[in-house]
């Protein structure tokens, strides 16, 4: 299973009403091109260790909406405590998908601990998360994602992928920076929810 293949499947199972928090690295350009409807429904950030935390905050703020976190092994290994917080809160509208290539691919394919003895799904289960599964094939990925998105419970899926970064043409690479990403996401959520998040001048 290649990363872009898995993300293509995820895109087909989700829509523009879902909100995503995404890590960076090879994920960034893949999801930029594959996100449902090419809408601004993804907050992509590079703070390794903070993606599931961001998804948790979003899921609690918007309990009626499906929230998907696109984690990586390198990111969640930087903050394994978040599994305990997820496991105690168990937000029913949150699905965490760890795209696990067992390496820090963009810095020279050096191995992460998931290439050795570390099993993230078992860690998550021990931390109190529910619906914790590891998949290694695209078929199983599709079945499990479809189930987790609509089961009304927290889901924690580890997707073991093959190494390799899809090279997108220059014009298809994500062109935005971190501040633009934030504003675009805010305006998208405002429109989706019919609310005001950042009014410029705050109301009391």
């Amino acid at each position, binding site marked *: 299973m290649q990363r872009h293949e898995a993300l293509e499947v995820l895109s087909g199972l989700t829509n523009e009403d879902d909100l995503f928090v995404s890590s960076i690295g090879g994920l960034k350009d893949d999801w930029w091109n594959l996100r449902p409807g090419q809408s601004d429904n993804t907050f992509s950030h590079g703070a390794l*260790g*903070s993606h599931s935390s961001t998804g948790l*905050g979003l899921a*609690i*703020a918007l309990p009626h909406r499906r929230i998907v976190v696109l984690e990586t092994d390198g990111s969640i290994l930087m903050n394994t405590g978040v599994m305990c917080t997820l496991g105690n809160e168990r937000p029913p509208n949150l699905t965490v998908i760890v795209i696990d290539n067992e390496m820090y691919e963009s810095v020279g394919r050096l191995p992460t601990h998931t290439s050795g003895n570390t099993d993230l799904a078992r860690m998550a289960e021990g931390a109190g998360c529910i619906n914790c599964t590891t998949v290694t094939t695209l078929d199983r990925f599709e079945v499990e994602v479809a189930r987790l998105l609509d089961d009304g419970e927290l889901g924690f899926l580890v997707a073991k992928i093959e190494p390799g970064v899809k090279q997108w043409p220059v014009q298809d690479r994500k062109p935005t920076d971190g501040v633009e990403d*934030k504003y675009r996401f805010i305006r998208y959520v405002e429109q989706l929810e019919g609310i005001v998040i950042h009014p410029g001048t705050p109301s*009391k």
Partner: protein
Amino acid sequence: MSLAPGGYAVPFVAALKSARISIVTALPDSLLKEAYGLLATDPDIRYLPVTNEGEMPGIVAGAYLGGKRAVMVMENSGLRQLCEPLARFSQVHHVPLVMIMTFRGDFGEPYYWGHTHAQSMEPLLQALRIPYRVVTDTAELEAMVMKSWVHAETSQWPVALVLSGDCVEERPYATT
């Protein structure tokens, strides 16, 4: 002003609610110990305890991006834990963040281990270019929490509110 033991807790929670804060993520500490119990049981507050302070910028940011007002509450020692998510997340993306921290190591600190918390707090806040105010009087809490929120929201940047004096547990050797 002198309060009964734990008397800071009610005005603290009231100040949060007055600023329409509905989500509080925290790593409980002894200087606000009476407040955490109130927060955990208040029907208007969604209380989220975490395992370390580094989890909190993401949670607060996620809540903000979902249209809710959230704050994080901790001891000032937590600032050392969250420097990386603060710099790499809140500041790279310009996400507002209200950090409320107790001032362990303030003048008269009776515990030896508390002094380094103070020694690193202000240099770190300055290095991270985070505006902050120290509040010692519970009568100021309501206005200062609201100002913290407004400042963070309009600047799209982190802000710190540091609690000491009457706003936290009394130190064993305090005389005034």
